[in-house]
């Protein structure tokens, strides 16, 4: 049986731990038998940590995020998330790809979480106005998503999550569909907004560069079935500037190191894909 509990901050043995995962396993029942997506994951994520998960495609990293978001149940093990302060949501997710409601304007999209929670109009106006300004979208508040570029849409998506003021931000490869230039700009923007509040973040990516640029700590996952392979701490100070950071020799070393861990897994994932295809 799985247990998923929300404990209050005082109850947690270590008050600094926001997310505690013990022996978490997720098995999907498929037509061709059980499929182990996640295998005995153990994790402690401290409050305020920008936590990155890197792994080859199909390693179950999105599944882990969906479990944390409450969109999926886990099979065995336990998951403890420190309860948020009264009236605040536990988490908000920035989804991969287009997740803005096409029938809502930029403003309505960004205000979605607050509106659903029935917050007063004045608060919604202030908070949404703030985050749309921070993401440079104030001029577009009456536009519909299809009138925006891919980068702008993802900015609305980020504003929507931040405006909801959650305890934890879950980000599922939010920039993977963007071109390189837009990616760097949005990473900078994300860091800038994050510096204001320093929320706990769990960020999934397949880009080692992105992981090192944004994260405090990086978990590298194995190819299927998804396990935690190595945990790497990122020593760079904050606030960070993306391009300056990338110019440092230590940056290149760290990226190279992580690639060393990841290479085998990516190759294994490829072999698995080819095995499935043949």
């Amino acid at each position: 049986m799985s247990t998923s509990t929300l404990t209050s901050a005082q109850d947690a043995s270590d008050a600094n731990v926001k997310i505690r995962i013990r022996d978490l396993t997720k098995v999907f029942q498929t037509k061709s038998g059980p499929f182990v997506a996640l295998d005995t994951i153990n994790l402690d994520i401290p409050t305020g940590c920008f936590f990155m998960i890197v792994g080859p495609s199909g390693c179950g990293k999105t599944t882990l995020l969906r479990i944390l978001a409450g969109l999926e149940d886990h099979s065995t093990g336990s998951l403890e998330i420190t309860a948020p302060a009264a009236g605040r949501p536990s988490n908000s997710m920035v989804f991969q790809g287009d997740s803005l409601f096409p029938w809502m304007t930029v403003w309505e999209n960004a205000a979605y979480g607050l509106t659903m929670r029935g917050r007063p109009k004045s608060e919604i106006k202030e908070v949404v106005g703030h985050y749309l300004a921070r993401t440079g979208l104030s001029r577009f508040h009456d536009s519909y998503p299809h009138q925006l570029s891919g980068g702008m849409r993802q900015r609305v998506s980020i504003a929507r999550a931040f405006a909801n003021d959650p305890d934890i931000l879950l980000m599922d490869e939010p920039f993977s569909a963007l071109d390189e230039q837009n990616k760097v700009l949005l990473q900078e923007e994300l860091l800038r907004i994050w510096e204001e509040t320093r929320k706990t973040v769990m960020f999934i990516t397949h880009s080692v560069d992105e992981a090192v640029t944004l994260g405090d700590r990086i978990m590298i996952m194995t190819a299927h079935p998804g396990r935690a392979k190595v945990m790497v701490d990122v020593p760079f100070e904050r606030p960070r500037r993306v391009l300056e950071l990338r110019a440092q020799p230590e940056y290149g070393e760290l990226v190279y190191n992580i690639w060393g861990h990841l290479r085998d897994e990516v190759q294994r994932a490829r072999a698995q894909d080819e095995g499935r295809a043949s």
Partner: protein
Amino acid sequence: MTNAVENPVKTQAFIKRRRGLSRDSVERLMNIVSPVGLLLIWEVCARTGIIDVRFFPAPSKVFQVMYSLIENGQLVKHSWSSLQRLWWGILFGGIPALILGVAMGMYRGLRVVVEPVIAATYPIPKSAILPLILLIFGLGEASKIVMVATGVFYPILINAMAGVLEINKIYFDVSRNFGASRWQVFRTVALPGALPLIMTGVKLGVGLGLVLISIAEMVGAKSGLGYMIWNAWEILSVETMYVGLITIAVLGLLFTLALNEIERLIVPWKSSR
């Protein structure tokens, strides 16, 4: 070599043509031009004796009768009673269909239970159940309204359900993650997401409603366009029959135009594509 000289000329001609009416206004203009064209051909054929005027009186003759029917208030009276029945039928059939259809799209359990019933009753010709409806609801207004309601019900329900099923699952994930209640999911995701297809259902339903109200009024009614047409047949006033038919056609066209405008207003994220 000659290409270099020809090309600029071609481009200019192209630009000139684009400066005329936009494609949108040309399409709107066709709404008027095309039926009027048909009437003109008809008039010519009737006057030259190509067609039998006992069955196909000249449009000018029909419009004379129409004018007198407007003057003595008959046409307005009959149109008005048909429109009222249509209106209530659309409301009584459409609103439950909308709610049930969207709910069926949202909840698999409900869909599994209700869908076979819908699939079995949908193909029954609505005109074939008119006697039964007359038996149950009597000869008054209720039977006419129910008749329209049954016609409107199916296309709206089926389109609303299909509309919800076509919504990308990610939008339901978003609303769940952002803490939307069931009612909020209905209102902010399922209903607006299904709206483009629901509007298609409404258009089909209104068209079918016009057909059914005419049929229903031919039996046991003392007013309405259907009654007017039936009565004209009994007194052999072919022109009056055509007046009724034209009125129904014009109403159908007006409904389509109105619904297209409504669609533009309530589905702004689709129309501006």
